[in-house]
């Protein structure tokens, strides 16, 4: 059920997160994916740092562009470094990841949403201080 030399499963069932479908035991055979991942991720990082400091781009678009770049880069890392792919053998890993992303989304968006509304409905600090006097 698993190649005893590499420890990487060779049968056509599930695959562990982080493992690639074993296509050989040579370093050169696996390094290509990591190089592509590194290249894409360096491009995304350089563009993001450039955007943050430039005045060449319409300023209000920058935050959205930075967030899009970050999400894209996270995707690159997940696929090329963590080897979580949409192949059927990785479906358990993807489902765990999906649930994780869902909780993260609820936590962040929910917190920000609720706290902004609370801020709007709060008595301003100066008036609160006057009432306490």
């Amino acid at each position, binding site marked *: *059920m*698993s190649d*005893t*030399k*590499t*420890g*990487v*499963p060779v*049968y*056509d*069932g*599930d*695959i*562990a*997160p*982080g*493992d690639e479908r074993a296509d050989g*035991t*040579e*370093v050169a055979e*696996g*390094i290509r994916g*990591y*190089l592509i*991942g*590194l290249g894409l*991720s*360096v491009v995304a*990082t350089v563009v*993001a*740092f450039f*955007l*943050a*400091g430039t005045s060449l781009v319409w300023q209000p678009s*920058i*935050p959205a562009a*930075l*967030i899009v*770049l*970050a999400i894209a*880069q996270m995707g690159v*890392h*997940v696929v090329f*470094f*963590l080897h979580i792919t949409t192949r*059927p*053998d990785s479906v*358990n*890993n993807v489902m*765990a*990841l999906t*649930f*994780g992303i869902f*909780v*993260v989304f609820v*936590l*962040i968006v*929910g*917190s*920000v949403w609720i706290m902004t509304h609370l801020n709007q409905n709060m008595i301003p600090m100066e008036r609160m201080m006057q009432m306490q006097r």
Partner: protein
Amino acid sequence: MSIARTELGFAGGAVADVPLAVHAEGGIASKRIVTAYGFWVFLLSDVIIFAAFFATYAVLVDMTAGGPSGKDVFNLSAVALETGCLLLSSFTCGVAGLGARARNGSWYYGGMIATGLLGAAFLLLELRDFTTLIAQDAGPTRSAFLSAYFALVGLHGVHVTMGVLFLLTMIAQVYAKGYRPDILRRLLCFNLFWHTLDIIWVGIFTVVYLLGVAR
């Protein structure tokens, strides 16, 4: 696949006739899959902890209490260097994993040592950032914004520190015990841990530093 079932006493009989789900086609999952999947679930729960810190930061980012905002104190060139260190270390960490798969000591130890050095460089740069901030009277006690900043970035720094310790033990384990399957499972977990920290750093340098300076 029949080997695994025999080992566990599931061979033949009614169990074999029960139609298994597609993802159990190969029989009982190997230990490597079970271990890595469990670690993956742990990492996702860790990511949720980070999400809570990110949410706290997003809520408190404007509460500067008359103190400095991110735009006033962040040093983007240091952050760019830190980012470079972590990105490269993710790559070298992957190379070390390939080296272990190929039973190639120079790739494995070379990759691991490079990863460790890059991780240590990242930590030193981050520590320098923190001491500079505290020296400028912008320490974690200055405002809610800075408390949230130090909590979020510091939590990541603590994780990287743990990762470097994990890395040193992995070098020692392979050195002492060789490429045994159980050691390779731990190495896979280390790889997952390190790559996940890099993904979280992508969130930090975008949300905290770049958006902090661009706002």
